[in-house]
């Protein structure tokens, strides 16, 4: 098997995640799809790291994980506070930028 297959898998997962972001309207599920896209990027970075024989790709994947963790914390806090003020987690309901 050619290691490029990992890149194809990453591309597929990224496209599925992007489709989910476009289709779903529950804010939590949209957020999960974004996580899926980030993970797909990480897989591609790890595969690149193996192809080129250095660890820089893995370092960047590591930074991606840190940023994703921070993003999830803030994003879920925003969803919770939105739910508190609007009693809904649908992205359609949060159409006005006011509480």
């Amino acid at each position, binding site marked *: 098997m050619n290691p490029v297959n990992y890149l194809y*898998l990453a591309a597929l997962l990224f496209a599925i995640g992007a489709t989910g972001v476009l*289709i779903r309207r529950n804010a*939590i599920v949209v957020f999960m799809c974004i996580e899926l896209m980030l993970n797909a990027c990480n897989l591609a970075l790890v595969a690149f790291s193996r192809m*080129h024989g250095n660890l820089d790709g893995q370092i960047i994947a590591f930074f991606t994980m*840190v*940023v*994703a963790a921070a993003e999830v914390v803030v994003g879920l806090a925003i969803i919770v506070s939105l739910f508190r003020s609007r009693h809904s987690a649908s992205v359609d309901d949060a159409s006005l930028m006011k509480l």
Partner: protein
Amino acid sequence: MTQLAAYTTSTGEALQFWVLGTVAVIGALCTVFMKKAVHSALCLAGTMIILAVFYLANGAYFLGIVQIVVYTGAIMMLFLFVVMLVGVTAADSLRETIKGQRWLAALCGLGFAVLLVGGIGNASLKEFNGLGQANSAGNVQGLAELLFTKYVFAFELTGALLITAAVGAMVLTHRERTERARTQRELSEQRVREGKHLPPLPAPGVYARHNAVDIAGLLPDGTPSELTVNKTLRSRGQIRDVSTEALNDLKALEQRAEDRLERPRPEEASK
């Protein structure tokens, strides 16, 4: 020989890739298409565990373990907590707000996938070195060396980012009470002023037939009163309605009584 070995992976890894890769794609699709957010979260957790296995197979031992600990352990559990907090009334509405949006979105996703796959197929990826040399002193040691020399500034910035994120989450979710809590007397005065529901809410259940909490109590005219059922049950739509059944029973009973006693209906008698 070593060059050739780096070009293609072992049969075991190929088998692992095809089996787990299929499961990962199925998990990703389930994440997108499952109706309930909890199911989506569990499918995504499965996909992430499979990705961790792929990291391990690609020689990224540290990242594989971090993936399991951070993603499936911490982030997905955070997701599940929020799903439980938001859960009850957060049903995803299946009504389309923009006509044909779903099909267009699916088409966009498909086109995007074709573009990405085509791009990778056309790229000249001739270089396969393998991680043998880079991992020779150990994967964690190699990563640490890079992290604390070449990328030390970015590493320190991530520390600042994490602290900012923690503070941000606290600011967003913690609500400072800016005014004094109202006392019981003030609350009761407000209720009197607004003039609604001075006494406690009516009890659920239709006496003599049912006394379950999910059955709306009947008003004197026989219609069910939504007010008698708990708010959570109302928003879940779990109210059982027995009003017509009760009314029919009552009618049949009156009919029987009338037949047996051979006398005019009670309403007419009371008039």
